[in-house]
């Protein structure tokens, strides 16, 4: 009886769902004319949706990979793969990140999963830093954006890699535990209780997707808030005003890094924006924009807050900022 009622409810909600879909598809437009808001709000909304639509495929692929890691990769595998020596582990993770075509938003759920599976924090962070920064797509777009000149693209990759290693080493000294919002013991009991090892491949795949759903609802809200903030900055904060702040070598690097943080561009596209600043600012400042942006930005910080302890996220952003800024300032003479 109750079962019957339940299946009736499900059918019923599906009918409503489909009805809603048809309704919105056909009449959605008539609503648009009712809402009266300043034009800039609609601009902000358009930029907001554009960031979101562009990021969603990557995030969804990210949560699915996270689901696969959760179900198919065991703690034993990880123990075997990751070198005991922290420096070796960092270098390895930075290399893996460099080969892995991810973007800032897609990589966060993957790193969370890896850390929960027992990857040490320094290796996880190495992967998080190089994943979006160094990959074939980014190299290509940087190369093209700067008039087919390989110097900037090469500097971005090599310097970025070294900076990522440096940051990971600092992280490995400062933090020992995995810094996830919840403790690792819980993660392990969870895996054992699921007992994935003895399940059929089909039910394993089912669990992968269910995990991805949870992950999406976990990450989704942070991605959305991040996109909204970035859209707000793009609509209401004038870049020109920001740029006027930076005239000297050092301050221009700071300004470009600030801009990279606030704009939260995808690493495959940011080179084109950077290129348009390439004659106002020295190369160091441009590299600051290109290296700092993929490592951390407004949208990405929001997403990290969903995964890591707040204190860790704040320290992480600070460390990345200080390291990128100091390395570039020290190297100023070479460019």
């Amino acid at each position, binding site marked *: 009886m109750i079962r019957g009622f339940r299946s009736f409810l499900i059918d019923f909600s599906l009918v409503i769902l489909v009805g809603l879909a048809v309704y919105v598809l056909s009449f959605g437009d008539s609503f*648009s004319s009712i809402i009266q808001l300043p034009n800039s709000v609609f601009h902000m909304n358009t930029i*907001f949706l554009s960031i979101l*639509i562009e990021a969603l495929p990557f995030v969804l692929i990210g949560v699915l990979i996270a689901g696969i890691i959760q179900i198919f990769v065991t703690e034993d595998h990880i123990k075997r793969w990751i070198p005991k020596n922290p420096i070796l582990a960092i270098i390895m993770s930075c290399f893996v990140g460099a080969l892995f075509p991810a973007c800032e938003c897609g990589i966060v759920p993957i790193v969370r999963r890896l850390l929960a599976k027992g990857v040490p924090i320094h290796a996880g962070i190495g992967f998080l830093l190089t994943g979006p920064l160094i990959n074939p797509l980014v190299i290509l777009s940087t190369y093209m954006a700067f008039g087919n000149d390989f110097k900037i693209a090469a500097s971005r990759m090599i310097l970025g890699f070294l900076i990522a290693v440096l940051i990971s080493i600092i992280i490995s000294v400062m933090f020992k535990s995995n810094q996830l919002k919840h403790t690792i013991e819980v993660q392990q009991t*969870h895996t054992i209780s699921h007992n994935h090892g003895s399940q059929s491949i089909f039910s394993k795949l089912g669990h992968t997707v269910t995990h991805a*759903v949870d992950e999406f609802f976990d990450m989704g809200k942070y991605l959305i*808030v991040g996109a909204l903030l970035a859209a707000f900055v793009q*609509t209401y904060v004038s870049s*020109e005003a920001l740029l006027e702040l930076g005239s000297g070598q050092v301050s221009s690097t700071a300004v470009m890094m600030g801009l990279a943080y606030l704009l939260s561009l995808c690493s495959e596209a940011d080179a084109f924006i950077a290129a348009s600043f390439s004659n106002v600012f020295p190369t160091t400042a441009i590299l600051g924009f290109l290296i700092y942006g993929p490592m951390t930005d407004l949208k990405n910080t929001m997403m990290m807050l969903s995964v890591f302890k707040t204190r860790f996220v704040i320290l992480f952003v600070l460390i990345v900022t200080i390291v990128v800024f100091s390395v570039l300032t020290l190297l100023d003479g070479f460019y």
Partner: protein
Amino acid sequence: MRINLQQVSRAIILFVFVIFIVRLHYTGDILKLINPKYLMLSKTAAILFLVLFIAQIKRILESDKHDHADHEGHNHDHGNAPFTFRKFISYAIVILPLFTGFFFPMSTLDASIAANKGAMLSLSNNTSKVDDAIEEETTEPDTESIEESTNNEVQQDDNVADPNLYSNTISKEEHDKLIDELSEQNSIEMTDQLYTTYHQEINMNADDYVGKEIKVTGFVYKEESFSANQLVLGRFIITHCVADAGVIGFLTEMDIAEELDEDTWVEAVGTIYLQEYEGDLLPAIKVTEWNVVEEPAQPYLYPISIKIT
């Protein structure tokens, strides 16, 4: 035994995301958000949402026999924990883009955004490269493209590259050929497909193009520092998504500039000359003929990707 409303609403949200993306593609609004190059990727997102939705449906059906009691304290929410204000907020956030996506009109970027993005800055930036670019050109002559152009001279006419705007990938040879042909033309038409390529070339080697006739379409953009007869005919260029839009275009000189409002779309014909703007020399257009046109159906430009083989 009861139906878990949170699981149902998660399913609904996932499904509405599918509808949302499908609708964007169906109405064509998607092109106001992203570069057509990424259309496939966005369709993939719709399919992935559908997969998640199906998994979620299965979970509604199973929610009582697989109670997830063993998941207590797990680091994320399976949607079974009691409904709290905190959760209400997080669901509201997830629904926000769906709400604004369905009910807010999709707008096209305009002059106010151009001002925010520092339009003049990016226009003058490209050009200060002039000297470097010329130097590079002379120190390392590109033998390959010279050969290319001589080879193609005979069949130039029936071999004009016309890359489709929506799949605008061309090979390096085609690109070089386009540039070679451009420098030989006396009258340049800035079509949507080739706008970005031509614009870059004209900015880099402005001297070569002075005196040539040019036909260009764009929206009116003005700055306080402009004189009464100056305006910019600008276009937004979308590399990835609207968030990374940049402004390109030409400073133009026309008699009635004062009367034209910002965001008016103008089609203009004129000659290229060099104009000083805040210390930079930029290629500008002295307009001879012009008329006001409707905003094009596809107002944005997308950079041509050059295949590197």
